[in-house]
């Protein structure tokens, strides 16, 4: 049985096509201002990649901030539920999941069957999410894809006082004027956002294993900051699927379950 999960994120719309417990294809496009258009585009991209026809998809489930706008979805689930299903599929031992997207951070506890036990959402403040790292990359004039490896070169921990993305931009600029090394600044940026999200996890309690998903989990420097905060390594999807697709994967899995598969 072939199903699809579409995650309508605030920045990117992602899709996973799922067939007989295998990830067949993934695709991602910018969400832009027309969520339905983005979803349509990402669906045809993934179908093309997989060499499949639209009619072969038995069930499409939507999730994410913009899920209500998708008229062609057969069903919807909350991002939290999708996160749980996706993370559980990848790491059956997972009991705590941290999902950091472009505009929101989510933390959830799951049981051994991948069902949600408790959750918390850190929303509406850019400083807790990917938007923060993006803004800092702009202020530092550094390609966001290189932020991770640059920060791992840092040898010094410097404090970052600003807790707001806008003020942090000014702080970064004055740090540069004071000749602070970029890698030390980037490490401070990662540590700051890692601290914020670790606090949110402590609110629901930490139970191992802990998984880290969402686009920001591509950043190896950020992963390092998180691992240091926890004192152990977090599970991050890599070989099977990229971390930003886990919600869409969860939606596709739920799509299959709903069809009795």
């Amino acid at each position, binding site marked *: 049985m072939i199903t699809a999960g579409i995650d309508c994120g605030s920045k990117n719309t992602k899709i996973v096509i799922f067939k007989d417990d295998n990830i067949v294809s993934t695709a991602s496009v910018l969400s832009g201002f027309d969520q339905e258009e983005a979803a349509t585009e990402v669906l045809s991209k993934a179908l093309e990649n997989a060499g499949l026809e639209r009619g072969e998809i038995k069930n499409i489930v939507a999730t994410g901030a913009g899920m209500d706008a998708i008229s062609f979805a057969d069903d919807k689930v909350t991002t939290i539920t999708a996160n749980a299903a996706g993370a559980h599929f990848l790491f059956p031992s997972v009991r705590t999941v941290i999902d950091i997207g472009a505009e929101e951070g989510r933390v959830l506890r799951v049981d051994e069957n991948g069902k949600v036990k*408790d*959750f*918390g959402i*850190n*929303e*509406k*403040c*850019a*400083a*807790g999410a990917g938007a923060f790292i993006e803004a800092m990359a702009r202020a530092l004039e550094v390609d966001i894809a290189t932020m991770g490896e640059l920060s791992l070169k840092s040898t010094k921990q410097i404090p970052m*006082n*600003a*807790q*707001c993305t806008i003020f942090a931009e000014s702080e970064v600029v004055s740090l540069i004027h004071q000749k602070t090394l970029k890698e030390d600044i980037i490490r401070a940026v990662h540590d700051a956002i890692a*601290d*914020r999200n670790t*606090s*949110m996890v*402590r*609110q*629901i*309690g930490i139970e191992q294993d802990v998984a880290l998903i969402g686009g920001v989990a591509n950043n190896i420097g950020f992963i390092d900051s998180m691992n240091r905060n926890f004192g152990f390594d977090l599970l991050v999807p890599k070989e099977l699927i990229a971390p930003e697709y886990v919600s869409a994967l969860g939606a596709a899995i739920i799509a299959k379950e709903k069809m009795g598969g």
Partner: protein
Amino acid sequence: MKANYGYKDGSGEYFITIDTDLCNSCGKCVEACPAGVLELAENELDPLEEDLVAIVSENHRKKIKYSCAPCKPSGETKVPPCVKACEPGAITHSW
């Protein structure tokens, strides 16, 4: 005098209010807090006053949502340890 330490940002309002008229400088709240959010210091808002009062330390003021999160488990309306420890009831949390 009521000192409101904290902030409002996109995600909500987070203020710890310390009533310095009620505070008796006992310091029990400082000991009760596991995150070091509170400390005893000169009342900076009344520079001519000499008694020590409880304050939220400067490095926590802009992130108290995060500093206090571990004492506020989700789904429970627990009384935070600092509020419990204060006999005169000088401390209140807005969330």
